[in-house]
């Protein structure tokens, strides 16, 4: 049985009158799902045929709880059913006991009754009550109380289990929301910082050179007839400036989105990184397809950072990059044979890498004991697109 208050509010939105008139009670029920009324209504119906005040009390409580606080209703209904079950068993036990007692007494003391059928006879008990001790009535009573008790025993752990499950899920969701808010904040901050860096680099670099270029060319234009030598020198200088501007733009773009990554994807870009590294870097790449572009980019810069650290800080003479995708997880391992002792807190850029992969629910693990080796493992959950094979 699936208790129906895990549904979302979208379920009951069918656009009829009751959904447009916004009555809180109705809305609450709609949000919980109408199925929640099933148990209390069943109880009400049963209580009509049942006996004892406990039935009515439980049913009323159940209905009230359902209307006021749907999630609590489940617990009350379940607890009520359990109590009813226990009560019914007690009652039945007493009836059964009385039944045999009465039969024993009556038939032992009254030889005149010996010819009667003891299973369909109404007799007076010792305490003075008339008991219907018909065979079928007792059997029904036993079955009914067993059924109610069974239902209660079955229901209680489910509602309580559901409640604790719900609480667990709520806690998990809350922590997920916190984590997402954090990583989103980081992602937005990082993107903004990157844009600022881009703007500053363009402003101080290529833009400035283009301005200088324009000024030089204008000067050369004016000097062409009067002082051709100076004009020529200015034009030559302009050409050099344009080459420098291009070189700066190249370096800038490489820092944002490396061309090989754009052309061929992660596997080739990491191979290109390895080739371009000042130390020999072995690659072992097993990717049957390409991760989503943002993950590719994050993974690329993670490897770039790890290799840069290997060269700059750990004094390694060689490094090894392993990359594979299995069970929905992109796993990258960069090992170097340097002196170790890397600490993300020391501003090695690994912190930035960790934040960046965290936006994709990825993790970074670092092992770098003094004396080395340094092992950096990055795992990012992602799917690969296109079955094309890239391998080194």
């Amino acid at each position, binding site marked *: 049985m699936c208790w129906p208050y895990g549904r979302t509010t979208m379920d009951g939105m069918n656009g009829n009158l009751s959904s447009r008139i916004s009555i809180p009670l109705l809305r609450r029920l709609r949000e919980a799902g109408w199925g929640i009324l099933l148990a209390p209504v069943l109880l009400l119906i049963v209580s009509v045929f049942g006996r004892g005040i406990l039935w009515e009390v439980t049913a009323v409580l159940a209905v009230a709880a359902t209307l006021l606080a749907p999630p609590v209703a489940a617990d009350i209904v379940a607890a009520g059913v359990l109590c009813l079950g226990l009560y019914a068993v007690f009652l039945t036990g007493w009836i059964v006991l009385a039944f045999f007692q009465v039969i024993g007494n009556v038939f032992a003391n009254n030889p005149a009754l010996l010819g009667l059928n003891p299973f369909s006879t109404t007799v007076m008990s010792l305490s003075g009550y008339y008991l219907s001790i018909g065979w079928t009535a007792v059997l029904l009573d036993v079955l009914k109380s067993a059924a109610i008790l069974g239902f209660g025993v079955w229901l209680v752990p489910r509602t309580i289990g559901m409640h604790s499950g719900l609480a667990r899920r709520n806690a998990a969701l809350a922590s997920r929301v916190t984590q997402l808010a954090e990583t989103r904040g980081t992602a937005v901050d990082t993107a903004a910082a990157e844009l600022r860096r881009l703007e500053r680099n363009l402003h101080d670099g290529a833009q400035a050179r283009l301005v200088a270029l324009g000024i030089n060319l204008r000067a050369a234009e004016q000097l062409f007839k009067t002082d051709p030598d100076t004009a020529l020198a200015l034009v030559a200088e302009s*050409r050099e400036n*344009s*080459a420098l501007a*291009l*070189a700066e733009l*190249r370096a800038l*773009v*490489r820092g944002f989105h490396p*061309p*090989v990554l*754009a*052309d*061929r994807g992660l596997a*080739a870009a990491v*191979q*290109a990184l390895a*080739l*371009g*590294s*000042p*130390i*020999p870097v072995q690659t072992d790449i097993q990717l049957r397809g390409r991760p989503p572009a943002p993950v590719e980019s994050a993974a690329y810069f993670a490897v770039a950072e790890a290799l840069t650290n290997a060269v700059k800080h750990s004094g390694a*003479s*060689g490094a090894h990059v392993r990359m594979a995708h299995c069970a929905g997880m992109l796993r990258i391992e960069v090992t170097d044979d340097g002196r170790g002792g890397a600490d993300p807190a020391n501003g090695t850029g690994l912190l930035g890498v960790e934040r960046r992969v965290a936006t994709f629910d990825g993790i970074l693990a670092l092992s770098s004991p003094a004396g080395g080796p340094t092992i950096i493992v990055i795992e990012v959950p992602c799917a690969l697109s296109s079955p094309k094979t890239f391998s080194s």
Partner: protein
Amino acid sequence: MRVVVAEDLFLLREGITRLLQAHGCDIVAAVGDGPALLEALVSERPDVAIVDVRLPPSFTDEGLRAALAARRQIPGLPVLVLSQYVEQLYARELLADRAGGVGYLLKDRVFTDDQFVDVLRTVAKGGTVMDPEVVAELLVRRSRDAPITRLTDRERDVLALMAEGRSNAAIAQQLFVSEKAVSKHCTSIFAKLDLPPSETDNRRVLAVLAFLNS
């Protein structure tokens, strides 16, 4: 010299075409995308092709792929690849068939047109020309056990200039030594890189390849 030019930016394509025409080249085709390039290369069989790495329709390394495909059909078809970036990965792929007739330069090298036309002629003759930026990147590498480590510093200098496509005479001029000294260095380099005596140009290609693979 019959030249095919592949460049998607109209201004650059026109610029290169005019520049080469001014130097007496015959532009047999000027195309703007990968498939057209492959078709032009195979049908025109030019003396040399100038190819931009990034071309439509995919705007990835379409030009490079078309050039490599054409060289598979016509081995040794001279190709000078131009790009906004140089990548060792692409340099290796171009040299991998060991046929020579390959150049790989940054686009800005076109600015120095005399040198550029020299490079074009070198490539057309089956030479190998790598951009100084590719070579500079190779020089900072600290390999441990590659054959390249057997070279002396001076031999590495010579090999670097060789990779840039310079002739022995040009290398001699650059390093302020005699041409004879350069050719002695070359012999030593070929020996140390285990390149058996053969036609000189091919050995130069292989030496550059060894350099790239170091």
